[in-house]
């Protein structure tokens, strides 16, 4: 490794950081006296250009970054990391658009800069293959998220949500670091692949007690990031209190980064554990595949994830039934969706099949949820409330916005031919493709049953938008650019749903370049 390599591998991150500084310079240096709308417009424009340029930098990834004198990869390129990074950049750009038309802060430059820096943390996490880099990336992302959550300074709820988020987050970071330190202690390395090699003991049917301790700590730390039950308590408050662009960012970009990390761990572990047993790749098809014997770390990790997944699916969906605030509803539905994805991770398969299915899910979920927060933000600005009743008569007050809401919520509920359905089908098929089918089938049944439950609460919102009479017939006005972005998101949800091969083909390109 030399610094030129480092520069090329971290080119997207570098671009984002430079953009963040540029936004600050432009906003604070030249536009201090300008109108708020202009400042927002310029800052968002610069930020989105930065994301696009960084996206371009991803197109031709160099080989992964290794440490001098070893072959241990520190930052991976291409494959899952590439997909996740591209998604993070695209979703960051989309969340920035949600800033247009808002007035919750006068510190526009800072907001955009912090968003971009947090996104940089996300990019690092997605690529990191080393415990230390992972932790640094997570902290960079998290610090940004705490600030973003608290950005609406006049709002008590924003402060409350951010405080809860920060306290829980600080604690979970400590847990994670504790778990990481045990892994280092057991294996003597911080490289994910080496850690897994160190954990792999031929003939050991069970993990050592210390391993369990480390795993539980790590699961707690990462469970917090993805808002899995029982580490989800911050989510409803943070989703409810944060300004809409922050909430959308927390719900999408930070989730993509965290799941990319979980995929890295899964891939490293399965590479060692299944690879060591010589299990053939998925191209043979799952019927002919020999059943792998579950070993130590792998079985413990899978079991932990299964518990988190089942609890998240159950509690997320059932608690969402009782919500009257749409933001809290989205928070609980996010917990439920995290549960589905954790199910995919619990039944992770060797090779790109599972990784792709989970990434497909998180990317499309992120896209949909940004759109959902966009709609909520518009309604909130017009009515001053995010309660379900604020959506009464939306189909009359703004038919286009109501149509966007219809598409996005039905996609979240998993109704075909929208993209959310494909994501679920793809994920569940991947889970069932992993032997032994028994446990997987049980949890898939739970997941499908729970998504039937979810239709009820999504319909509660749509019912108010379409069915029930409006109390107030005044039109709900959306900024034209916001409306355009929301329409693009809804169109993507429909088009990707009707032609699911598009996104899968795009993702496969990243894997082909590995």
């Amino acid at each position, binding site marked *: 490794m030399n610094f030129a390599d480092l520069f090329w591998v971290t080119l997207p991150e570098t671009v984002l950081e430079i953009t963040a500084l540029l936004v600050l310079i432009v906003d604070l240096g030249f536009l201090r006296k300008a109108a708020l709308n202009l400042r927002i417009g310029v800052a968002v424009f610069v930020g989105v250009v930065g994301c696009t340029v960084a996206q371009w930098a991803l197109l031709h990834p160099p080989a992964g970054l290794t440490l001098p004198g070893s072959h241990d990869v520190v930052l991976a390129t291409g494959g899952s990391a590439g997909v996740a990074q591209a998604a993070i950049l695209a979703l960051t750009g989309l969340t920035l658009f949600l800033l247009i038309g808002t007035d919750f802060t006068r510190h526009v430059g800072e907001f955009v800069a912090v968003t971009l820096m947090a996104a940089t943390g996300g990019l690092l996490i997605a690529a990191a293959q080393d415990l230390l880099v992972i932790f640094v990336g997570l902290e960079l992302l998290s610090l940004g998220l705490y600030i973003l959550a608290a950005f609406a300074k006049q709002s008590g709820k924003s402060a409350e949500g951010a405080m809860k988020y920060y306290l829980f987050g600080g604690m979970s970071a400590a847990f994670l670091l504790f778990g990481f330190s045990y892994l280092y202690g057991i294996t003597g390395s911080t490289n994910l692949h080496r850690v897994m090699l160190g954990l792999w003991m031929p003939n050991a049917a069970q993990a050592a007690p210390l391993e369990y301790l480390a795993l539980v700590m790590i699961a707690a730390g990462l469970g917090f990031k993805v808002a899995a039950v029982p580490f989800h308590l911050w989510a409803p408050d943070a989703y409810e209190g944060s300004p809409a662009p922050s909430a959308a960012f927390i719900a999408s970009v930070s989730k993509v980064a965290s799941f990319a990390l979980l995929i890295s761990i899964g891939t490293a572990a399965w590479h060692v554990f299944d690879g060591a047993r010589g299990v053939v790749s998925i191209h043979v*098809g799952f019927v002919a595949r020999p059943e792998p014997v579950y070993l130590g770390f792998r079985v413990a990790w899978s079991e932990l994830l299964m518990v988190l997944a089942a609890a998240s699916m159950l509690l997320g969906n059932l608690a969402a039934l009782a919500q009257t605030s749409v933001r809290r509803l989205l928070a609980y539905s996010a917990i439920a969706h995290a549960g589905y994805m954790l199910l995919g991770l619990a039944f992770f398969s060797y090779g790109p099949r599972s990784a792709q299915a989970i990434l497909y899910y998180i990317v499309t979920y992120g896209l949909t949820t940004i759109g959902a927060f966009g709609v909520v933000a518009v309604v909130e600005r017009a009515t001053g409330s995010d309660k379900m009743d604020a959506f009464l008569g939306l189909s009359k007050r703004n038919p286009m916005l109501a149509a966007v809401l219809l598409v996005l919520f039905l996609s979240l509920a998993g109704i075909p*031919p929208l993209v959310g359905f*494909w994501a679920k*089908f793809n994920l569940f098929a991947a889970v*069932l493709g992993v032997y032994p*089918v028994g446990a997987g089938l049980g949890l898939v049944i739970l997941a499908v*049953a729970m*998504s039937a439950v979810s239709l009820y609460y999504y319909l509660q919102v749509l019912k108010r938008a379409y*069915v029930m009479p409006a109390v107030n017939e005044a039109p709900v006005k959306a900024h034209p650019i916001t409306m355009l972005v929301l329409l693009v998101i809804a169109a993507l949800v429909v088009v990707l749903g009707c032609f699911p*091969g598009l996104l899968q083909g795009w993702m496969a390109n990243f894997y082909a370049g590995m």
Partner: protein
Amino acid sequence: MLAWTIYLSFAGAALEALLPRRNAALARGLALAVALAGLALAVLGFAAGGANHFARVVIADAMWVPSMGIRFTLAADGISLVLVLLTGLASVAGVLLSWNIELRTNEFFAFYLALIGGVYGVFLSGDLFLLFVFYEIAIVPKYFLIAIWGSTRREYGAMKLALYSFVGSAMVLIGLLAAYARTGGHSTGLVELAAYAHAGALPVSFQMWAFPLVFVGFGILAGMWPFHTWAPTGHVAAPTAASMLLAGVVMKLGAYGCLRVAMGLFPHGMDPWGFSIIGIGSWRDVFAILAVIGIVYGALAALAQSDFKFVIGYSSVSHMGFVLLGLMTLSAVNTIGATGAVLQMFSHGVIAGLLFAIVGRIVYERTHTRDLAELEKMHLSRRLPFAAWAFVVAGIASMGLPGFSGFVAELQVLVGSWKADPWWTGAAGVGIVVGVAYTWRVLQKAFFSDTHASLHELEAEHKHPLAPITWPEVTGVVMLTAASLVVGLYPRILLDAIEPAVKALAGGMQ
């Protein structure tokens, strides 16, 4: 060509959504044009199928999701063609009988045509995955049609219907996922999956749990007892056109799924268990008994209703019981029952549509009550003679009297069930007798109970005459009656299409 029934309906739905809000006439005209085009395509497709001896024809085939081996395959055999024809008829009649919708007309027809598109799609899918997609597409428009334009307890009825449907489709999805994973994740084509199943990729132990799961999943939408409760509430809450479609074609989606997917892919799920509990020795017995209970229970419940529309709602449960009973008699040597079941799908689709049209639109829109005790005082046979006589004809058809489609269909089902188990036939016969009773009862109560009318009452009626019958109403009613009559007098016209397809399915059961 038949594929255009689907594309046209969805394109029509999208166009309706974009139409200006105030122009109801334009929305109606467009909907009628699209429905008529669908019917024309269905008739042409049926004729073309006839020229081809109703063999299975692949209409469209393209790779859809390459990484998962899912193809966009549309295919039609005799069963599909019959049901597509029914959909065409019901959709045109439905548009005609919603001519008076003034509230958010364009949205109404947007949802309406989206539902029709989904229904065409299910009947024409040659790929299980595609079938499932269309099946779920049909759920959402149903919800909004009922919740926005419905009547009695509409939000409750709509939500109940949506959740029942979604739970049913969740069960189907699990069966689909499991079968897809079990066969290696190569394809979801119905023919391909059946071939895998035949080659032993789906062992009997697997089919033994997948069959009941998927059968019940689809059966919920077919009004299978005891999961039928969405049907009466949903039908009653729905606006006329939606109840016509619900009873007419949507319940057939469920029955079609039972036949095509559950029985087509997991035929060994109907094999004997190897032991028996109180004479029940297989899933076939279980579902046949549920079907018979549905027949009798639906008929008895219809007899006890005081709401005119509930009578028809429960009668649908009873008639759909015949469909499920007929399906359960299918075996390699006994195809007459299942043939009758498919014919019954068509027949009930037409007749139920007719009954709901008369009750929900022609009578209710004028009298503003469906309470039989209220209707008794209204002397409808004199004030609405067209409605009265149309209902007489529809009632006769519904009772299963010779000359109408219901007779041929139910007779075949009974013959088939006699071959399978005479006890089922006996119990189902009770349902027919009760069927005569409840039809007679509503006929008498709603239309012909004016013997005691006083002169005073008659004068009062003359001062407030009911709105005259309109041409769309007459056209819709005549069209559906004619369809039932034609099939009743010359059943060969459909049986020629149904028989080879059912025999092909039975061939897969060996």
